[in-house]
């Protein structure tokens, strides 16, 4: 019983760290993003989680918010913080069907 309680504490702590780091979670399964678009505030982070079976290359060339996660292996997640307000087109360079918009507001 004591062990279980301790274990629960660790999990809760783990989750709260994640929640602090990013407010939005984007999944990647079946060579697709989990949503077509999301809205975030400037300075907020978005977590890109590769929960697919193959590596993805998540990136954006939208002005002021350029980023490139390189080759993101399955089972990894990366936080991206957007600095400029505006529409950010996010793509996977490897899989052309993977596209989404991040609307960054002031």
């Amino acid at each position, binding site marked *: 019983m004591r062990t279980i309680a301790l274990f629960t504490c660790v999990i809760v702590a783990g989750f709260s760290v994640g929640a602090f*780091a990013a407010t939005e979670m984007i999944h990647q*399964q079946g*060579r697709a993003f989990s949503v077509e678009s999301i809205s975030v505030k400037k300075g907020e*982070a978005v977590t890109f*989680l590769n*929960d697919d*079976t*193959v*590596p993805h*290359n998540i*990136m*954006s*060339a*939208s*002005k*002021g*918010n*350029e*980023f*490139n*996660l*390189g*080759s*993101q*292996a*399955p*089972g*990894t*997640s*990366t*936080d*991206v*913080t*957007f*600095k*400029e307000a505006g529409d*950010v*087109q996010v*793509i996977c*360079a*490897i*899989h*052309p*069907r993977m*596209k989404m918009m991040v609307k960054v507001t002031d």
Partner: protein
Amino acid sequence: MPAPGSYRSRILAGTIASAALGMLGFSTIGFGAAVVGESRKVEITQKAPSGIDALKALYRRPASIPFPKDNPYTPEKAALGKKLYFDTRLSVTSAQSCASCHSPGFGWGDGLAVGVGHGMARLGRHSPTIVNAAWSAIFMWDGRLPTLEDQALGPIQSPGEMNMKLDDLMARLASIPEYKPMFETTFPGQGMKAKTLAQAIATYERTVVSERAPFDAWIEGSEKAISEDAKRGFALFNGKAQCAACHEGWNFTNEGFQDIGLPSTDIGRGEYLPGVIKMQHAFKTPGLREISRRSPFMHDGSLATLEAVVDHYDHGGVDRPSRSDLMRPLSLTAQDKADLVAFLKTLTSELEPTAVPVLPR
């Protein structure tokens, strides 16, 4: 690199790539304005299909051909497009048609390592098949064109290929009396112009669909349709050999771009995405339908047989930063390799002969 002047390498390169990706100034930006955090390992539960039946369901043929809203199918359009597709007068020499490089006799390719263009000059890359182009998300080996309509006009105008200026082409077609009424009927109120020409050709190309192959009969329940070797090959294709990571779905492609480690200097999609390491030497994953008729293989036509293709993947190719993380030595046995080839051969149909149309005079 492709031959100079080749459409495959040149036409409006940056602009089109940018348009295709919905962004401008792609090649000049520096990455890093957004703040990227550390990558973390995450526990995930993969939803792998359970059992052979679930796996087979992923490869079922679609019931109908998708046509885009802005260029819907009509029988007249497809018929006109077929005439244009086989009409050599679309080239400046009146010697080459679309079918010269994308011939039904060679699985809608040309059977050559690399294509042959204007003046019999060798082109830089292998002529891709047009089979099942209706399902493609992006066009050309380097993905620089977003629609089949754009693609249809490319080789016509490319100096290295059909070398025909669009204005000259429309004038030439207008001088052939039987074409004009066909365009008028097919495109009421629009008539003959480059746009309708492209729409007609693209519509015909979308009707070029691989026919039922032994593999289709098998996934629909006919156990005897393919050999036991081929069934083992299918399991390997989806398992140990990892082919299905890219060659997925009924047309056996996810339209993605990978550097599969071929020893070639052609950087492919890297030309349009210079800041993305994984796109250097990356080319579009081709579908595998009608594959037995489409040798030699790869973007450079460098592998003559399916056995050589399987050997290449087993070896893993040139190890370089751009090489796909999915490419690594597979340790396939001789039996594994033979089974994979047996499976691949079940994707070729008993293709119906294609009648060459009578051309307008």
